[in-house]
């Protein structure tokens, strides 16, 4: 760790570094371009994984916090870049260094109006082009009359803007075409059975072959980050259920851990075991539903009904303990809401008994089928380098050979004590992504079987003050959701409400990469690839 800081101070004497507890480098905006290049390409630093870009509005200045990780040394670093200009804030783009930055920067532009100089695609991401104002700025006018609900068709443009600086440092806008003038553009979505929610692909096709895809998001953008700023900490928790509704438990777990870390709350071991049990149960349920809906996308409808059988059994277990089928709001600050239901252990054991047989059945019906093999093998191949470049984490990343399981790289809660294998495959195609998830069900079952007989006694929730105030500071924390690395950035100004709560969803990169991996394949492959990336649209749109 020391060497990284030394290298940075040697190269950039102006940079200040503070431990936060992830080291945070602050540089003047002019040096950011050069620092970014060094961070990415200097062999001593080699930060190849851009976790997220957090846009910030500190009232007096605006800026971004970049969270970086090196996949070789597993070192973490954050960089803070600020600009004092509120009228036309601009920061140098890093989209040429990390491919995913194109989308992350568009998101920051959409929310804060910060222009990224050199990003080839400076359009709004979630909001329509006629939206007035930048919603996550502190001075945003929320009067509904400014942006009324309209039923008129959304205006859309075929041009994007590229900003560059001229010799005098002034911003120059340049219009660029998204599609060629004579492309045959098919609009897939937002209401389409295969987009798994409301995602929209504008697809340029040549016959059945895809030339380019332009992804439109925001059809379920609910502004959760902004709402959280108006709510107290315990209230913000219930939105975690409604992001990726299959990973409700891991997401809750993440936010709870962040708040507990900030407030210095120690939770009991019983609560920790219960949380991990719930995480793994929801992982099984989530992967089961993935297998079902994916097979349905490929035309094998019957599989959906077989996989949902297991899911219903898990939902029954959840319902007995948490009181709901989907939006549980079970983990709370200090532990969990209620104790386990009396027959929890028996139910889970019954579940563990049926899982191996079910997986065998899925393999028999679908995985070994010659049509399924032809549809999936070699389709949508994503190399390890591309997966890191595009920040594709979770099962999809592991299918490309990138061991990115947060439970292994940065163990949290009690994962360090548990025995399980990280499922990694090297093929990187749709079949690998499918098989990784199938195998992860077995691994999750293994974790559960280690814990189910050893749930310690103790209190399930420690006492926390009714009104929770966090000290001034910022925290960043990641967990392994069902679909990849889920992160929470929390900044507090000492009040009962968060100053900024940034959600880092794993599904946003998964949807952004679709264009990259579908080029040159068939329209039917778009469904295969999109399904295998397993994105949940409310998660990416927030």
């Amino acid at each position, binding site marked *: 760790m020391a060497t990284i800081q030394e290298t940075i101070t040697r190269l950039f004497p102006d940079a200040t570094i503070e431990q936060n507890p992830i080291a945070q480098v602050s540089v003047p905006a002019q040096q950011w371009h050069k620092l970014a290049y060094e961070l990415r390409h200097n062999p001593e630093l080699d930060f190849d994984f851009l976790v997220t870009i957090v846009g910030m509005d500190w009232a007096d200045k605006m800026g971004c916090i970049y969270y970086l990780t090196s996949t070789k040394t597993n070192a973490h670093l954050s960089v803070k870049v600020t600009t004092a200009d509120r009228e036309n804030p601009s920061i140098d783009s890093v989209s040429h260094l990390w491919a995913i930055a194109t989308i992350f920067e568009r998101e920051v532009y959409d929310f804060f109006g910060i222009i990224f100089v050199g990003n080839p695609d400076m359009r709004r991401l979630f909001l329509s082009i006629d939206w007035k104002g930048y*919603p996550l700025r502190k001075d945003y006018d929320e009067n509904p009359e400014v942006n009324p609900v309209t*039923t008129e068709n959304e205006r859309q443009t075929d041009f994007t803007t590229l900003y560059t600086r001229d010799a005098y440092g002034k911003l120059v806008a340049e219009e660029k075409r998204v599609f060629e003038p004579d492309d045959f553009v098919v609009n897939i979505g937002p209401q389409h059975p295969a987009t798994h929610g409301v995602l929209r692909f504008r697809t340029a096709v040549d016959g059945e072959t895809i030339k380019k895809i332009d992804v439109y998001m925001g*059809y379920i953008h609910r*502004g959760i980050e902004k709402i959280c700023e108006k709510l107290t900490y315990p209230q913000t928790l219930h939105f975690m259920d409604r992001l990726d509704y299959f990973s409700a438990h891991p997401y809750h777990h993440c936010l709870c851990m962040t708040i507990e870390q900030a407030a210095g709350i120690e939770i009991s071991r019983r609560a920790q075991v219960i949380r991990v049990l719930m995480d793994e149960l929801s992982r099984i349920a989530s992967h089961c539903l993935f297998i079902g809906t994916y097979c349905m996308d490929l035309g094998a409808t019957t599989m*959906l009904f077989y996989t*949902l059988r297991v899911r219903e059994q898990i939902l029954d277990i959840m319902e007995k303990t948490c009181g709901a089928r989907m939006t549980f709001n079970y983990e709370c600050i200090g532990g969990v809401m209620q104790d386990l239901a009396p027959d929890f252990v028996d139910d889970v054991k019954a579940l563990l008994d049926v899982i191996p047989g079910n997986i065998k059945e899925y393999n028999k019906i679908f995985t070994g089928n010659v049509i399924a093999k032809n549809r999936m093998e070699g389709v949508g191949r994503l190399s390890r380098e591309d997966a890191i470049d595009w920040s594709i984490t979770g099962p999809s990343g592991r299918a490309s050979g990138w061991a990115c399981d947060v439970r292994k790289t940065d163990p949290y809660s009690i994962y360090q004590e548990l025995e399980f294998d990280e499922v990694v495959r090297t093929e990187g195609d749709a079949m690998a992504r499918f098989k990784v998830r199938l195998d992860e069900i077995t691994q999750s079952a293994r974790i559960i079987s280690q814990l189910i007989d050893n749930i310690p006694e103790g209190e399930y929730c420690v006492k926390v003050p009714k009104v929770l105030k966090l000290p001034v500071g910022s925290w960043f924390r990641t967990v392994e959701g069902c679909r990849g690395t889920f992160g929470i950035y929390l900044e507090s100004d000492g009040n009962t409400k968060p100053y900024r709560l940034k959600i880092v969803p794993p599904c946003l990169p998964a949807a952004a990469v679709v264009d990259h991996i579908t080029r040159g394949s068939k329209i039917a492959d778009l469904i295969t690839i999109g399904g295998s990336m397993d994105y949940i649209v409310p998660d990416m749109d927030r």
Partner: protein
Amino acid sequence: MEVTTKSMPYEAWKDNEYIEKLVAELQGAGTNVIVGSLDKLINWGRSNSLWPLTFATSCCGIEFVSLGAARFDMARFGWEVARSSPRQADFIMVAGTIVHRMAPVLRRLYDQLAEPKYVIACGACAVSGGPFKKSYHVVMGCDQIIPVDVYLPGCPPRPEAMIYAIMQLSRKIKVERFFGGVNRQEKQKEFLAAHPIEEVND
């Protein structure tokens, strides 16, 4: 007149007053015998064959999938023919949050449905905005854009609740009149006249 569906006693319904009022309103003027029995036949067909549009934006959509699965099996009632094309569907189950950007799309889908068309606002978000009441980008209830026939609360509603909601819809259809009299279509027209949209030219 007691309006009910198979194997559901009339007393088990929660809002019989509303249906009774509707019956009185629609059939108050009395009915011609021939036309009346034709109406009955048509309503029998319509109320027993409700094909949903596959439309889901978030969590409620997953419960809708569960509704189709073996445990709750909406096929028993003949609702499993989920059509992806709005031209062929009978009702939209607005399952999930509707945001500003989605509003024109939903409205367009509704306009694309063939008559007679019905809407169920499914889940707290579609009913009133639900947990996202404070949001800048959420439509506070899909009844601001399209006329709603049945409101179904819950976040998300359980599949059993969804069955109840669609049964309520089929009960509403049973009291409709096809020939003459006041029917819901006119109310719908009033609503649409109050919420006009621009002519699309593309």
